[in-house]
């Protein structure tokens, strides 16, 4: 049984002047433990797809089913809880909270899960140790390199032990060497921990290294 099912997903962006069809009747399934790459030219709807898959955005039409739960049936609180327990996000521009330290940033998903401070610290430290940042706990994002920021973002994505990691161009802002390190980390999360990963990328080499590549063009799935 598929872990993620997107059924006839369309997304239409409307402004007063213009309508843009970002996704057009897209079907996609992702199995548990799979590492899927999503590729396509800029503006083809890859990130929109990932946002809908991550329940960060609602489709205009179609249904999203994750681990047997239909997203459209969930209210704001249930959606928040579902994201917290099942999904981890890695963004191209890291999206770390500048006012918080590395440790506090990683603790964010745990706070909303209601985990106590001591246990939160332990869990966050453990995962930061795994990504090689145990010596940067009190630093703030502005004091870190791009690669370090993305490691923090990965730590934050996995600290709550979600089944699914959604990564939107996770190496897009990094040089090739650091990018390779980040990809190694993602592969370890997939192979060692068995997490399902869906990654948007422009990098053919990185995509080739994953289980499956899904290609998009003008909002339609082409492969």
């Amino acid at each position, binding site marked *: 049984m598929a872990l993620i099912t997107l059924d006839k997903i369309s997304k239409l962006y409307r402004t007063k002047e213009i309508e843009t069809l970002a996704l057009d009747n897209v079907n996609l399934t992702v199995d548990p433990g799979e590492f899927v790459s999503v590729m396509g030219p800029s503006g083809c709807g890859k990130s929109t797809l990932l*946002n809908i898959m*991550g329940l*960060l*955005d*609602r489709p205009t039409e179609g249904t999203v089913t994750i681990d047997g739960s239909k997203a459209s049936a969930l209210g*704001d*609180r249930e959606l*928040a*809880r579902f*994201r*917290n*327990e099942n999904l981890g*996000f890695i*963004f191209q521009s890291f*999206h*770390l*909270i*500048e*006012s*918080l330290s590395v440790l*506090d940033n990683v603790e*964010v*998903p745990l*706070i*909303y*899960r209601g985990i106590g*401070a001591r246990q939160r610290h332990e869990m966050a430290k453990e995962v930061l140790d795994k990504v090689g940042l145990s010596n940067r706990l009190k630093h703030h994002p502005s004091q870190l390199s791009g690669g370090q920021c993305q490691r923090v973002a990965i730590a*934050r994505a996995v600290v*709550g032990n979600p089944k699914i990691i959604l990564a939107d161009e996770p190496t897009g802002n990094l040089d090739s060497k650091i990018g390779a390190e980040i990809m190694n980390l993602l592969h370890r999360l997939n192979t060692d921990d068995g997490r399902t990963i869906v990654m948007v990328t422009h990098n053919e080499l990185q995509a080739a290294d994953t289980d499956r590549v899904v290609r998009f063009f003008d909002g339609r799935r082409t492969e």
Partner: protein
Amino acid sequence: MIKNYFKQAWASACHNKVSTCLYLSGVALAVATVMILSIGFHTKLSPIYPENNRDRMAYVQTCWWERENSSGNWGFPWQMLDPIFGNLKNAEAVAIRNESRQTNLIGVEGSDKELKLNTQWVNDGFFQVYTYEFLAGSPITAAEVASASKVAIIDRLTAETMFGSVEDAIGKTITYASTPLTIKGVVREASRLTPMSYANVYIPLTIRDDYNEEGEAGPYRIIILLREKGDMESLRAEISSRFEVWNKTLAKVDDLKYILFDQPRSHYDLTFNPWSSPYYDAGENGIEEYVWIGLVLLLVPALNLSGLISGNIRRRANEIGIRKSFGAARTRLLGELVTENFILTLAGSIIGLGLAWVLVYCFRDWVFTISDSYVAMYSDTSVHFDMLFSPVLFLIALGAALLLNTVSSLVPAWHSLRRPIVESLNQKL
């Protein structure tokens, strides 16, 4: 959860130092404005030493009289005091003070030491209506007033200045216009912000040579302590009937007529409309007028705060998007944002309270006399702690600030939280 809110508020405050400083200043200014106004009114209206019974005080300050071709007003003449104000059923005590209060040179017998002091000529009831704390000795008695005993009560500061200590002052002699007066009591000093009761030296009113001078009016002002708060109307009726009798008695020998008008009046009425008269309308200057002034004064910082909070929340749209991505529900985030503002408001309010105290203390001669020229006539304004701090007033000011803050923060916060997560995440700073 609360600890997290605090931690988050602290992190956010430290990260946005300029904005935090502006926010705290805005709240502090708003609270200080409310507090200064409140302290002013607290001093005028609330029970303040030694006028702790203000809610039971009834004032008969003015004696209006008219004849066929003339009229006038002043205080009451000696001959009217006992017939009108003696043995009132509704009065627990009656204070009589001679309005001819002035600063006099008071000397220490056997010494060259002389001080220019504020002097009041009062009766024994004065020390029953006003709750002076006697640090040594005892109040002036009815017998001493009746016999014009040469005694005096002085305040602590005077005692310490003249004799070194409170205890040393008792039994010593001071001189007023070459008249020796034996000090029989020392009281904790009143502030000149309680003008009816303020003085450095209190002397029996019968000591003055002119105490029983006859005339249409006289120098005596009356303050009555009601037995119960609700006795004002009964007292008014009682005094009114005595006025009628007095007028009838006078009418037999003269065309003189006395008018009571709306007296006796409450402390509130006297404070806000001191010059009401049967002959002209001085206008109704109730507390409402000052409340409106206060609200207008609050409006400017309120608008600034609202703009600042809106800007802050807009700047934090990205953070809101991140938190929502990782599992924060809208209501939880709303709670976090409002709590952050609450904490900052609380901090700003405490700063505002301190600021208000400093301003009131440093500019007391100006602050307390903005709408009251009466208290400015005499010596320095001493400000007691009980004038500055009323927990109720602080809570009212804090409540006003919190209301202001909540209204200012809720709308932009809720508006921001309703935006789609993707839109928040893509917000560029």
